[in-house]
């Protein structure tokens, strides 16, 4: 496909069309739904991290006024385990990849044992939310508490409490990628090797809107409608119907209306929506559930949680000869929907970074523990890869005594377009890593900064700079490849364009907007392509009742995959429109041009018919081409030929307060290359938000479990520190533009770049700030003031 020339609205910062309804309180969220006969669910959850269930007594709860039903796992006969949608055992023919996987049962209501705090064991359904919650407190569970393991490094050690009979030693999988022998050889021949322990802590997504669902079964028709906070309603429907409940897919409609953020946590099929759907069928009444923030902390899939030993081999002049990575990934108590893919194919395949590396080998062990399940969280595997590389590269440079910027520059993959084959299976699409890097250094004025730093150090101030040259993989595809990696689904997208008789357009996209602004971005594409005002375009998403089967939004895939599917349908509309116009203008279809909203006869000025006249003719086909179907509606499914690989260069300047260890960010610079940009303001917003989340990980956020009791200690916003506006600097951003050859618009994806790039930039900056004290590495995040203060206290140069 040829590259489309950016024209009218493509590249313009159109204000988000969805915002007026959001900022005036007129969004329609799941919890806003009111249905006649509604019932309300409250879940009884385990207070223990690990405990056998001896007996559950529901009698008192059932007698509570207003209670409609109380169910435990034993009532849910015929209901299957929540499925794992990525089976590593099925991965095949990927050079260097070794894998297996223990698939363990994950019942919607557990009957034998609870395996993490918050694990649901019963549900109370009542006429009011209050009655459901009050009655849930009356459910008596006879617990036999068991020892728990929550710490990543301990989960697979001998003697650790065992979670699942099917996963001996709590090992979910062992996975390898790369070339072990070549890597060993590279390390043997290296002038210098540096090995560091690098911990990527567990995070909680914290979408602004908690998860919620309403299930309504209609007995008369056998139809079930599920409104759910989902990033991918078709996937929700498929998994729930085909794998868990065994109900006919065509009798189920899943609607994800306005959804207030996801960051990945709303991709997955969760216990609660399955239970509410099942209960609605059983009770023949609508059942509603909305998570409290406490439930969100305890049950939304968590992110990250890696412990990694990373090792870099360098030549004396700073060439990267080899990279060796051994990671333990904590998957939590159960396998969440796509959990096995995140620390494997979304992680190990990114370890080549933006560098020419001699050889790479990576081993990952996935372990179960008595913690909330871990799955994709903004970036999903790629932030962990970027963090490991960008930290070990700086450690390597320090080991060699070489400037961290110079070492990177020495190793960048030279500019290319088409294909760069990495050592870890994937092939990059296009890149010009040095250009983004140089632009960032220019904005920074690196030499000047180093001079300022030198002066500051003389005054005893701890000023530091850290970098991150990142790569990200988005719009994962093609389906055939992801199938070969073990995915249970394809990764294409659907886009249907319905032109109405009056020339108004409704687009049905399989992508789902929960903050991304599709109603604006996609409308820009349509308005441009059809030459009509943007007001004539509506974007519909999130409803399996009207949208063709789609895969949804995650992994920065909406513009590149969802947008291209829409573009394909627009091309079909125009092709058909040309036939109609040719008939009306008494010309041959081959002689018709379409631009500016008009079909024109080439070389015959004045012989033209507007788009609206053609659409009307399509639906009132009195004067119409012989043999052509009436109507103007086209559907396309786009399955890309490859991933897209955005990249960029970030830098962070910090000052550490010696007395308290408090880290203050003085400057944050980001030069991103996400290919062509449809709406710069929306992309800027994504970059800003992503950086905030990444800085949050670096400095403040972290899910902390008590090592003994297994309780989540950071289970509220009073304890889990999300970044606030006044904790962040004004960002200095720019872009370079390297279009991808993969899709016709040349767009790559922008949703996750900030969370991927920023943690290593911030941590590297703190290491640099503390360098005069003799600090050359920091193992764990977040860099809370206390952690930094203790590092300062322990540093040899501090006294």
């Amino acid at each position, binding site marked *: 496909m040829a590259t489309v020339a950016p024209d009218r609205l493509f590249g313009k910062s159109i204000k988000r069309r969805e915002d007026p309804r959001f900022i005036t309180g007129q969004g329609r969220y799941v919890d806003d739904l009111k249905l006649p006969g509604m019932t309300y669910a409250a879940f009884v959850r385990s207070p223990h991290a690990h405990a056998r269930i001896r007996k559950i007594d529901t009698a008192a709860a059932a007698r509570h006024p207003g209670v409609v039903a109380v169910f435990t796992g034993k009532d849910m006969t015929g209901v299957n385990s929540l499925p794992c949608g990525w089976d590593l055992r099925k991965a095949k023919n990927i050079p260097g990849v070794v894998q297996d996987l223990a698939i363990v049962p994950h019942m919607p209501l557990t009957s034998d044992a609870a395996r993490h705090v918050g694990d649901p064991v019963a549900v109370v359904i009542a006429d009011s939310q209050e009655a459901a919650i009050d009655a849930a407190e009356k459910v008596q569970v006879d617990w036999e508490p068991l020892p728990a393991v929550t710490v990543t490094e301990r989960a697979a050690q001998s003697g650790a409490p065992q979670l699942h009979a099917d996963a001996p030693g709590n090992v979910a999988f062992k996975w390898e990628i790369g070339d072990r022998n070549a890597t060993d050889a590279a390390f043997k021949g290296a002038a210098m090797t540096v090995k560091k322990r690098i911990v990527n802590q567990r995070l909680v997504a914290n979408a602004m809107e908690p998860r919620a669902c309403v299930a309504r079964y209609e007995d008369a028709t056998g139809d079930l409608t599920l409104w759910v906070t989902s990033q991918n309603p078709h996937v929700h429907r498929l998994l729930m119907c085909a794998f868990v409940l065994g109900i006919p897919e065509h009798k189920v409609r899943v609607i994800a209306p306005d959804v207030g953020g996801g960051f990945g946590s709303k991709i997955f099929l969760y216990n609660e929506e399955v239970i509410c759907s099942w209960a609605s069928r059983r009770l023949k009444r609508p059942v509603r559930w909305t998570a409290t923030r406490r439930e969100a902390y305890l049950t939304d899939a968590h992110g990250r949680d890696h412990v990694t030993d990373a090792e870099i081999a360098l030549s004396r002049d700073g060439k990267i000869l080899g990279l060796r990575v051994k990671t333990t990934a904590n998957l939590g108590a159960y396998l969440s929907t796509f959990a096995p893919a995140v620390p494997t194919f979304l992680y190990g395949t990114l370890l080549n970074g933006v560098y020419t590396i001699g050889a790479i080998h990576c081993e990952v062990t996935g372990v179960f523990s008595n913690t909330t399940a871990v799955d994709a969280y903004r970036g999903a595997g790629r932030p962990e890869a970027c963090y490991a590389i960008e930290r070990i590269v700086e450690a390597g440079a320090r080991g060699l005594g070489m400037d961290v910027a110079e070492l990177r520059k020495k190793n960048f993959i030279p500019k290319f377009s088409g294909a760069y084959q990495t050592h870890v299976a994937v092939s990059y699409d296009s890149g010009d890593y040095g250009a983004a890097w140089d632009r960032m250094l220019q904005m920074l004025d690196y030499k000047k900064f180093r001079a300022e730093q030198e002066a500051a150090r003389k005054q005893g101030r701890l000023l530091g700079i850290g970098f991150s040259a990142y790569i990200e993989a988005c719009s994962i595809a093609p389906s055939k490849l992801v199938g070969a990696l073990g995915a249970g689904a394809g990764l294409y997208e659907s886009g249907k364009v319905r032109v109405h008789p009056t020339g108004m357009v409704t687009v049905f996209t399989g992508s789902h907007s929960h903050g991304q602004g599709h109603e604006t971005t996609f409308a820009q594409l349509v308005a441009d392509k059809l030459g009509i005002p943007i007001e004539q375009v509506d974007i519909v998403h999130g409803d399996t009742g009207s949208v063709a089967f789609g895969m949804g939004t995650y992994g920065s895939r909406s513009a590149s995959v969802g947008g291209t599917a829409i573009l394909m349908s627009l091309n079909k509309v125009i092709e058909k429109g040309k036939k109609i116009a040719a008939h009306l203008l008494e010309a041959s279809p081959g002689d018709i041009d379409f631009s500016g909203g008009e079909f024109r006869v080439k070389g015959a000025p004045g012989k033209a018919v507007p788009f609206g006249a053609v659409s009307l003719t399509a639906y009132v086909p009195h004067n119409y081409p012989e043999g052509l179907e009436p109507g103007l509606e086209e559907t396309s499914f786009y399955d890309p030929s490859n991933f897209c690989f955005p990249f960029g260069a970030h830098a962070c300047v910090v000052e550490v307060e010696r007395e*308290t260890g408090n880290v203050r960010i003085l400057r944050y610079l980001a030069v991103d290359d996400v290919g062509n940009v449809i709406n710069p303001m929306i992309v800027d917003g994504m970059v800003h938000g992503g950086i905030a989340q990444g800085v949050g990980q670096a*400095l403040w956020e972290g899910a902390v479990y008590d090592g003994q009791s297994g309780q989540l200690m950071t289970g509220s916003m*009073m304890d889990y*520190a999300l970044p606030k506006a006044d904790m962040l600097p004004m960002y200095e951003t720019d872009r370079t533009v390297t279009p991808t050859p993969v899709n016709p618009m040349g767009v790559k994806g922008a949703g996750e770049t900030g969370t991927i790039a920023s943690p290593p930039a911030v941590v590297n900056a703190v290491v640099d700030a503390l360098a005069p004290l003799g600090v050359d590495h920091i193992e764990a995040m977040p860099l809370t003031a206390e952690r930094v203060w203790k590092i300062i206290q322990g540093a040899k140069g501090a006294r």
Partner: protein
Amino acid sequence: MYPAAFEYHAPTSVKEALGLLGKLKDDAKLLAGGHSLIPMMKLRLAQPKHLIDLRKVAGLTGIKQDGNSLAFGAMTTHWEVESSALVKSKLAVLSEVAALIGDPAVRNRGTIGGSLAHADPAADYPAAMIALGAEMVCEGAKGRRTVKVDDWFKGLMTTAVGEEEILVEVRVPVLPASTGAAYLKFPHPASRFAVVGVAAAVTLDSKGVCSKASVGVTGAGTKAVRAKGVEAGCSGKKLDAAAIEAAASKAAEGVDVQADLQGSVEYKSHLCRVFAKRAITEAVKRAGG
């Protein structure tokens, strides 16, 4: 996030409120803004059967000067303290403290009496009240009594208020001449509560020597306390940097520092010393030193 069922009462006089309290006793909690109690009830950590809302009780709001003190009605919101011209002119430090509490939503609902009666160990007011030598006026069936701040905080979220008494007024002496006061805290990045907060009031004599220092510490322990060692270290000294540092080194003495997610004993003790130093330094500067 639904609290357990409770009965709501909205008396309009202190007498009526005391009557309810006398009748309902332990089953009742007083509601004075609700930015601590309501979240605890939503989490069902607190499940009072009755709530006695003081919102409509006459005479519990407003700030007035009464002799050498400012008198704050217990239901005066943090925002009223923060924005009051009277407070800014007579006790500017208290306006600064109020401005550090929570966020605007909290400050528009939360009250000075509610905060001091709740006695959260990480609240901001307690340290300032200690440094400023405040008095709490409690009213019961037998009338009013005044409790000095040093006798007020009894332990974790417990105060000297009687079971059938209501804190109705907080009296804070205006700053004497040649006195500077400051409150500085290390806020928790999530809650913005004080991991450690130190308030200091320092009076200098004509030679610039400290004639009186009053220092309160909040956040580190189970209750806010007076840092007597620091006060003694300041008194009679010319407070240069070295003297302040030496005095501040006693800031964690007498504090039952608790290790928790907010910090270890070692770190919080250190922060007590750092923030004592900073608060005293600022107070001395403001005193004209």
